[in-house]
């Protein structure tokens, strides 16, 4: 039942209340089901929903496993390693601190090593080598600061 996952989430809570969390991530459509994921970000941990019963990962966060309908979901930190699957450079968009559309803002969808077609989308670190910013490149999770909020970003991978 869903109560179990509520308990699992509460153990990871950092010291901000729900109202503050919602305020920080309102632009991301945060809700009860994605709260653990966004609390993870504040600790610079990429937390993805995983099923306790069938071990299936899913994203974006939902309250029930889409593979087996189990409610026993544990938000679980991933390695952050993966491969660029989709890639674009935004030259316009909503204004955001530290985002320079004039220079081109890269957005990478990374296929995570944990599971086939489990993906996470984020920007690239500022030092990402431009000539290796392409589909198929191995990457690792890093964090940048955006107006004081830890924000996931991928850097070039260092190994397999």
């Amino acid at each position, binding site marked *: 039942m869903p109560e179990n996952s509520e308990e699992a989430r509460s153990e990871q809570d950092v010291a901000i209340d729900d109202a503050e969390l919602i305020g920080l991530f309102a632009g991301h459509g945060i809700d009860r089901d994605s709260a653990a994921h966004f609390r993870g970000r504040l600790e610079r941990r990429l937390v993805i929903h995983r099923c306790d019963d069938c071990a299936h990962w899913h994203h974006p966060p939902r309250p029930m496993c889409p593979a087996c309908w189990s409610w026993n979901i544990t938000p679980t930190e991933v390695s952050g390693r993966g491969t660029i699957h989709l890639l674009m450079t935004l030259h316009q968009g909503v204004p955001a601190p530290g*985002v320079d559309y004039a220079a081109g803002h890269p957005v990478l969808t990374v296929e995570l090593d944990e599971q086939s077609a489990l993906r996470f989308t984020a920007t690239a670190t500022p030092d990402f080598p431009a000539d290796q910013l392409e589909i198929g490149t191995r990457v690792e999770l890093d964090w940048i600061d955006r107006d004081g909020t830890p924000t996931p970003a991928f850097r070039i991978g260092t190994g397999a």
Partner: protein
Amino acid sequence: MTDRSPMKDQVAIVGLGSTGFTRAGNRSPLAMALAAATEAIADAGLTAADIDGVVATSEPAAKGSEEIAAALGIAAATHHTKPSPVAMFSILDAARAVFSGAADHVLVVTPVVMGPWNSRQAAGDPWRRGTRSGILPNPDDATMAAAYAAWASRYIHEYGASKDPFARIAINSRTNAADNPLAAMTEPLSFGMYDAGRMVRDPLNVFDMDLPVDGADAFVLTTAERADALPHQPVLIHAATTGIVGKNDEDQLTTLGRTGQHVVVEQLRRTSDIWIDDVDLFYPYEGFTIITLAWFENCGFCPPGGAEAFLREHWNDDTNRIEINGRVPVNTHGGSLSEGATRGTGHIREAVHQLRGTAGSRQVEGAESALITPGGFFFNPQGAVLRRG
């Protein structure tokens, strides 16, 4: 999946109304909706007293079916709904209402507006400043519109495609728009102009993206039987469907080789007696050019990754547009890229004009059937086969 198609040829589109589309609009969404609606009802040879169903597409800033009914002075309606944007959700809702007996004459109305989220001009207009699209302001997402640029990168990567087929979709639409008095953008587009287009979401440039406009389309649907007594040649809904795969979050879609487009095509092939070798007209959606390449491939005109070769082979240099096998034109009205971003109502309206013989200078002689495929990859792929009644 169902093989049943009891609605086949039982519902007709009998009325059309359109304001035309503009980049310099100064009317409210309700005013545009009412202009299109009254025109469509009159075009069907009907009055407000005949309308007992109102379907009002939930476009940003659009009024609901109850306010449309109030503004039109409808006496009573037994079917009134507010489907999501993208045309077939509303057309199918109306058709199913007619077929089920929920209502006899159903009005569909879809106003579209430029908003602060897609137009700098609109962002400076105080009448539009408060308009919301529901799109979340996060620069690091590959969702909504941005998802099409993201998957275009994958298409180019997997097939080694150039931008040539993307350019041909954009140029085809612009060429056809020149003959359409409703179209917002009619200046001719060359390959050179396309290549020089301002990059917006690399790999997609400004010519790969539909054109934000103001305007409205409206339709009236009734039974095939009632349609015979009305002024225009009826156009029948022969087959129609929507389709999604379960794993449809934009960045989680397993592969472009299995999307809602495939579900739509499989369902149309199960239920339609008419398919790509038979149709006289093709209206693949081009909200983004990558969507259109996928529709060509997924409908079976060419294999996956084959759109580049296909469009080059079926390009008419003299007319500067696509003509499939020298015969079937594509998006004869100029589509969402050049007529304006109607999310598919323009494609359906134009197909009906062609099939009933009211397409003016764009008329394709003897056109009897059309394949229309609105929607993208994720949560709104749709399709229909329309035929002359």
